[in-house]
């Protein structure tokens, strides 16, 4: 068998991603799963092959598409039966839970080909675990093969990687993953301890809009790689592209590889057109690492977010129609922000309220506002209390992010006084990350 020393072999499942049309955004039908990583490697002009599980009906389509995307070899590892391997995607911007719907997932079964195709022509392997037993694959690789694992959804325990111990280069985890929620949500040390059991060289923790951290487990050095926040067109597969490009460039050193992976991910988030992605990625790669680092971006590690309080200003009353406020609160909580809701902290007043209750609540809300580091305001129905709180926060010098989904407050004082004013939750979430990252940077 021919040996592909530099090529990355991407291992995982191929699915169909279908993004539902909503809020004026167009629907999008794409091959997903490891095909996202493949697009990223093609756009980065890195050599790669794919070994994948997918339903029989997708095999020819996947081969054809991947060939057009420069894939050297497509290896069908096995069939998927009992489910179409179709994922419906609700929220492409990941302002909150992405709402992935894996159709018929409960009846899905992965059937390995017997005998397994040989994978011993590759030394640089990137595995995206799925609904298949990784250990069954272990014997198909050569002794020289080195592995990286991007663990997203289908692996809740790192003991599943023990067959690869001492041969693992990178473990890659996102803060959106169930494994992170189990091992590292509250304390990074728990995650690091678990990861050390498989002896990788590095751990990459992808922290969504707050950037990422590369932990070099040989010397304990931690590299913070900032996010470049812009208009998110589609966040699906962005993390996979980060991992693939990083692993593909690992021969340049993990730090440089991670920065380039992050650049690639940014390009992938801003378009779903592969030629656009490739053009933008190649342009970005012409910047030196020094320039890239000097430009910076948004750095706000998951575990630091709870150190800053956000005062949620809005008509958060039980009798108000406020689905936008609830969605914003969910989004902030999803991203691990410490959201302080005065109605929950200090209670909702009876209607009509007594003068003493009004006095007491006013002072408690003012105190809470003073204690918070920033304000996220949603002035639905031009709620007068919210507008007063916006004014007070501006005067206190606190960053104010005003989310005005119904375009009701397009007023000079509100628009200019706010650090960010937008009817778009994605933009307001970016603004929140930027504002708190700024406070964190000042305090260091």
């Amino acid at each position: 068998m021919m040996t592909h020393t530099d090529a990355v072999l991407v291992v995982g499942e191929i699915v169909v991603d279908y993004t539902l049309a909503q809020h004026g955004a167009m629907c999008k039908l794409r091959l997903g799963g490891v095909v996202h990583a493949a697009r990223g490697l093609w756009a980065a002009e890195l050599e790669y092959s794919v070994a994948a599980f997918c339903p029989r009906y997708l095999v020819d389509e996947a081969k054809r598409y991947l060939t057009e995307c420069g894939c050297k070899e497509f290896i069908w590892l096995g069939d998927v039966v009992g489910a179409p391997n179709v994922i419906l995607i609700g929220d492409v911007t990941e302002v909150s839970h992405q709402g992935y719907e894996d159709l018929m997932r409960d009846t899905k079964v992965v059937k390995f080909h017997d005998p397994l195709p040989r994978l011993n022509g590759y030394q640089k392997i990137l595995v995206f675990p799925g609904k298949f037993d990784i250990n069954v694959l272990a014997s198909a690789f050569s002794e020289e093969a080195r592995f990286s694992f991007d663990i997203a959804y289908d692996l809740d325990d790192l003991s599943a990687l023990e067959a690869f111990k001492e041969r693992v280069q990178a473990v890659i985890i996102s803060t959106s993953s169930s494994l992170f929620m189990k091992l590292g949500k509250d304390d990074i040390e728990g995650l690091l301890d678990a990861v050390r059991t498989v002896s990788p060289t590095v751990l990459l923790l992808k922290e969504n809009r707050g950037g990422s951290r590369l932990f070099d487990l040989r010397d304990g050095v931690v590299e913070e790689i900032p996010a470049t926040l812009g208009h998110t067109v589609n966040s699906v597969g962005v993390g996979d592209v980060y991992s693939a490009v990083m692993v593909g460039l690992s021969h340049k050193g993990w730090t440089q590889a991670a920065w380039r992976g992050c650049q690639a991910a940014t390009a992938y988030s801003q378009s779903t057109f592969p030629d656009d992605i490739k053009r933008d990625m190649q342009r970005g790669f012409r910047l030196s690492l020094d320039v890239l680092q000097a430009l910076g971006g948004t750095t706000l590690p998951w575990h630091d977010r709870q150190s800053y309080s956000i005062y949620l200003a809005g008509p958060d009353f039980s009798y108000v129609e406020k689905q936008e406020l609830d969605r914003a609160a969910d989004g902030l909580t999803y991203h691990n922000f410490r959201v302080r809701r005065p109605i929950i902290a200090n209670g909702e007043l009876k209607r009509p309220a007594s003068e003493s209750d009004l006095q007491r609540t006013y002072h408690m809300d003012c105190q809470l506002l003073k204690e918070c580091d920033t304000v996220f305001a949603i002035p639905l129905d031009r709620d007068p209390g919210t507008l007063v709180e916006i004014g007070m926060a501006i005067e206190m010098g606190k960053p104010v992010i005003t989310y005005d989904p119904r375009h009701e407050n397009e007023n000079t004082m509100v628009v200019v006084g706010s650090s960010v004013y937008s009817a778009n939750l994605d933009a307001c979430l970016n603004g929140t990350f930027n504002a708190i990252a700024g406070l964190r940077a000042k305090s260091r």
Partner: protein
Amino acid sequence: MGSSGSGHFSDYPGTKAKEVAGDGSGMAGGASGVDKCKQAFHVLLDDVGNSDFYSRFKNVPTAGAQLGILFDKKRVFAVDVNGFKVGALPTSFNYLVTCLANGVTYVGVVRSSAVSPVPTVDADFAPK
């Protein structure tokens, strides 16, 4: 009823974007035809009061004055014809660094400006 862009995979490299016919809302193709580097933009400059230009002249460029774009290895600035920094571009314009590194240059013109109550300059830029 009709197509909504889900009839087949269409994002093959090397194909141009087109909207899918039918009721909905699909978009096919490998390239959108849009290039951010080649788009004109309008910007309200940051830190005009701390800029080289304001520090030197205690003034701001008047409407109609010509501007250029400079990256000083740290931030992107608007500069006057003599190279004095007039103000910084917000970090959302950092993508221009990539465009400049790939040979795209920009020319701008001050749309409006004011010295008080705070020095402000807003400008229009277009690729040359």
